């Protein structure tokens, strides 16, 4: 089991003529499933290029999987997998050939690369299509092929750039399920996206950047603050519950056939539960509502600008 942070940025700055893509970023990110969140132009792609050693920082230092990228970019690249957002597959080749070749390019012997290509294409659900030319693949199949080529070298960390881009809802769910499973294989993930729902669904750590600045970095759970509202599903007993809560001096309202109750601490939560029991209502659900990552991002980005 690898220890230490997944990557560490120390005053990392990247300037291009006329623009600062990343500005003095300092953060250490733990291993696991990490979301890299930011709007278009926030600096996500620049971050990936720096991590792959394909660009050099203007200032500062970057360490990936315990290795100084500037000192040994080749070693870093041998431990990473990369799935770009854009189309990047040779269309006239089969998935098996492409993934096998990229396995060899990752340093695997030819026989092992072919075997792993077969295994990984099975894993991503392309076992039956692996001998078909990629030109005939749907968007979802191409995304899976891109993921397969990123995984074939058994990376320690895989960089995913907008992995759900262009996918239909079913394809998106499947891709996110695959990404979520990578963590159980011991593979860390850095998933760049502007879809905060995707991050909230699969990532256990979030790194938010905006205009090249670090907005926030933290565990997903810790960022999702409680809103002071609980949602109660009591079926058709909504009005009875609202009346009872009003008698207790609590505010409640119906939202989408559910009852949203404003509470002030765990005691109020107990009072809601007891009232439901007292009224003999069926309690299908009682959940505390948290802020979404969208709300966190908008608020923190507003604070930092």
């Amino acid at each position, binding site marked *: 089991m690898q220890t230490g942070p997944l990557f560490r940025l120390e005053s990392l700055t990247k300037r291009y003529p006329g623009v600062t893509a990343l500005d003095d970023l300092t953060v250490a990110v733990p291993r696991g499933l990490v979301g890299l969140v930011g709007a278009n132009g926030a600096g996500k792609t620049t971050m990936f290029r720096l991590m792959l050693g394909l660009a050099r920082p203007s200032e500062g230092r970057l360490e990936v999987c315990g290795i100084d990228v500037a000192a040994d970019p080749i070693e870093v690249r041998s431990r990473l997998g*990369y799935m770009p957002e854009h189309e990047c597959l040779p*269309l006239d080749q089969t998935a098996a050939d492409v993934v096998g070749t990229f396995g060899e*390019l990752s340093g695997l012997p030819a026989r092992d690369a072919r075997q792993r290509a077969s295994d990984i294409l099975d894993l991503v659900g392309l076992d039956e299509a692996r001998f078909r030319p990629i030109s005939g693949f749907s968007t979802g199949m191409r995304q899976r092929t891109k993921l397969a080529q990123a995984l074939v070298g058994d990376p320690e960390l895989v960089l995913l750039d907008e992995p759900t881009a262009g996918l239909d809802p079913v394809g998106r769910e499947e891709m996110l399920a695959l990404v979520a499973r990578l963590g159980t294989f011991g593979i860390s993930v850095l998933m760049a996206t502007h879809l905060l729902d995707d991050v909230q669904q699969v990532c256990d750590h979030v790194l938010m950047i905006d205009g090249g600045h670090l907005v926030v970095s933290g565990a997903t759970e810790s960022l999702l603050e409680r809103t002071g509202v609980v949602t109660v599903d009591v079926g058709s007993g909504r009005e009875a519950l609202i009346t009872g809560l009003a008698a207790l001096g609590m505010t409640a309202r119906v939202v989408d056939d559910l009852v949203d109750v404003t509470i002030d601490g765990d005691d109020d939560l107990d009072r809601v539960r007891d009232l439901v029991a007292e009224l003999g209502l069926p309690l299908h659900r009682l959940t505390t509502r948290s802020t979404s990552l969208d709300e966190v991002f908008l608020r923190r980005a507003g604070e930092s600008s």
Partner: protein
Amino acid sequence: MPGALGGGGGAVYDRGYRPYEGPRGRRGAATFALFKASVRRALGLRRSWRQKVAPFTLLAVVTMPAIVNIGVGYVTRDQLTDRIEIITYRDYVGVSSALLLFIAIVAPDVICPDRRQRVLPLMFSRPLVGIDYVAAKVGAIVAILFAFSFIPQMILFIGNMLVSDSALDYFTGHLDVLWKVPLSVLVLSVHYAVIGVAIASLTDRRIVAGASVIGLFLVTSIASGVLVGDFRPGEGSAAALINVLALPLYLRDVIFLGHIDRGSPLGGVATGGLFALVEFLAVVALGLVVLWRRYRWTEH
């Protein structure tokens, strides 16, 4: 039975994941892998039969003179005191210049799609740098050109040996062929491959690259022909050096004869062989610089 995670355009099956714990190479392994993939692509291997037609037809074409030469030698082996030699080993290097057509087709096919289909970011996310990429691509084309030029010559050599009165005498009498031929075809292969790959690297459209390769050779040939004009043996002109297509053949003359053939457009030019060598080195260096700059993927 594995579990399916979804439906639609194809289900995602849970087949588990096995970490890789075997040997793992670095730049050398990645470069060799790219070299192999490029050779496969150039020869149409693991691709449809249509992709195999051009390379293997050209191989057949450049092998034909050797077959004919051996056939004539065999048929007339008991009839003539002096053997009929349709083509010499030196001339045969000139036949290989027909592989220019191969370069115009294959170099763009090996280079352009990587840029056009934006595969380069995937490649350079591996333990590979720009120089490795150039080495693999140029190396693949050089290797195929060398093989396509050398194999017919070896067929000719072995065939001539077998139809001669004494195979051993023929072998010992032609030992110089065993170094002159490979050196000549290596010069030709490197020259054509570097020019072809460098031109192809400047565009992502295969047709443009192919036309540019042929155009360069045609234009320089015609320009050289016009400037040199009619000449008598031994009265050639240094303007012959403009002809990029013929440049390896002047070096072939130096390798086989020790000097430029008097009958060639460069014949009679003082230190013509040296000029040809300098130009060859300059062209190869220029091509490699162009390639290095085009694939200098990592910022400096």
